[in-house]
């Protein structure tokens, strides 16, 4: 997941264009005047503090939330797929893996059971995601990574142009995060456009070709090296953060200042650093 995966901008019609989008729940603006364009084959990470409107942005892009002002235009015939946050899924619902994945082909068939072609497509996707032997299991009988894969498989079965994912790595351990990131990178490599939201600045967002810092409005958008700068981060998170460099990648560090008086009456400033996520797991393993 390096800069080499980002493609040069092609002069085609963008998949989705948001212009001055404002979304409101009750009387509160959750998104304010958001401009955003998602082009073909892009891979974008949206970051920001809790409650900054990340999920609402996904909904506005997907069209399940109608803006009170501004416009969201989708390219004609655009096929989108949405992978919801794992916690929002009703895991006790009686569906097997194959039944769940088949929902991805919801349009265009009048019979309840899958056609031979659909069965083959499901098998192929499950095999590609390495969960083929689980097809008749109930969705709750799976591990966290397998559950995530089932929903990616469901999204892929609809052969989307744009994949929207809400926090695909929330509550996921480092190994699984790598696995998911690797998988998404592979799908992106085949031409799929992906937009995901994440809390994980260093573990996810910094690895993507393009990121968007959101706090009700778009504070900054572009390559991680251009966006992960103290000024944009402070305006996004409302707290000052430091950006270090590690192996050519920006690493964001939280930065709390505690002022307290010492016995002689002078003030000392202590700075406590706290890395956001883990950029390189081997760095931690290598520590004595």
């Amino acid at each position, binding site marked *: 997941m390096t800069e080499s995966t980002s493609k040069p901008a092609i002069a085609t019609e963008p998949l989705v264009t948001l212009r001055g989008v404002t979304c409101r729940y009750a009387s509160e603006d959750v998104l304010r005047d958001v401009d955003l364009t998602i082009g073909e084959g892009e891979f974008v990470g949206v970051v920001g503090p809790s409650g900054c409107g990340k999920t609402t942005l996904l*909904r506005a892009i*997907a*069209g*399940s939330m109608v803006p009170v002002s501004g416009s969201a235009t989708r390219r004609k015939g655009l096929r*989108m*797929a*949405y992978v*919801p946050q794992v916690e929002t*899924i*009703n*895991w*006790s*619902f*009686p*569906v*097997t893996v194959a*039944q*769940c994945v*088949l*929902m*991805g*082909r*919801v*349009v265009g*068939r*009048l*019979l*309840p059971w899958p056609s031979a072609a659909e069965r083959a497509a499901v098998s192929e996707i499950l095999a590609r995601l390495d969960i083929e032997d689980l097809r008749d299991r*109930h969705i*709750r009988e799976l591990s966290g990574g397998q559950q995530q894969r089932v929903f990616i498989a469901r999204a892929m079965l*609809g052969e989307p142009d744009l994949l*929207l994912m809400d926090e695909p790595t929330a509550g996921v351990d480092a190994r699984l995060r790598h696995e998911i990131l690797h998988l998404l990178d592979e799908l992106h490599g085949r031409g799929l456009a992906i937009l995901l939201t994440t809390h994980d600045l260093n573990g996810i967002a910094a690895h993507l070709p393009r990121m968007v810092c959101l706090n009700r409005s778009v504070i900054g958008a572009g390559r991680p090296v251009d966006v992960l700068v103290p000024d944009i981060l402070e305006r996004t998170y409302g707290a000052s953060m430091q950006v270090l460099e590690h192996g050519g990648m920006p690493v964001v560090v939280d930065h709390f200042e505690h002022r307290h008086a010492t016995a002689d009456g002078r003030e000392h400033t202590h700075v406590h650093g706290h890395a956001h996520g883990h950029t390189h797991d081997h760095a931690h393993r290598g520590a004595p």
Partner: protein
Amino acid sequence: MIDELLRPFEFEFFRNGLIVATMAGALCGLVGVYVVLKGMSYIGHGLSHAIFGGFAASTLLGINFLLGAGAWGVASALMINGVTRRRVLGSDAAIGVITTASFALGLALFAFFDGEGASFDAALFGSILGVGTQDVIAIAVVCVLASALVFLRYRALLFTTFDPEVAEVSGVNTARMDALLMLVLAGSILATMKILGVTLIAAALVIPPAVARMLTTSFSRMLWMSSAIGAGCGFVGMNLSYHLDVQSGPTIVLVAATAFALVFMATGPLGRSRSAAIGKAGA
């Protein structure tokens, strides 16, 4: 013994009642799967009470019951659907207001016009008497419509039930699916009201899916199992109703409750955890 069991089959009213009860069980079992998994049990309960208002009004005004209560039921169903979809704060309360007010209106109409009697009791608790050819046809029509909906819109309905927001993004018209489901639910309540009774329809909607859920984790299997369990309970309950001389609604529900208890005990902790999770749908 066998003669005694077969005796009621000589009577046409019983044969009609038995056909209606069996179809009613199957229909409620089928529709109930969606009702239960969408966390709409309360709506099913409320809607049956709302339709009672339409039943009272049409009985007293001398309008055809299926037309009068049907129009009333469809209006209530769409109203409830609208309230629920808008996610108004406390939509449960709003549904409670609409449906119990309608039920109370029905009771008041009956009291005011002194219309209590056999049909009043039948509407509340179900009765085999008064089940005619018209009722057999009505329930057969609703069965065909419900099956057609489940068959032809299988994935869209499943997707809407499981994960409505993602379904919408994936191109499903979830508003239409919800409305269709509400209409089929209203039709099912209307067609089964005479045999099951307003106060007991909710049980016929909820118990068979709950039993089926304890027995399987597959959606398609849950659909046919729940329909079969509902049909079986309707058939056995109707026979018991004749032999015990108890209204059909209570006997059908008691048979279903017994089936629930047996499966609950037989499946042990596994079934229990499955059925415990059933109410969390839509959370």
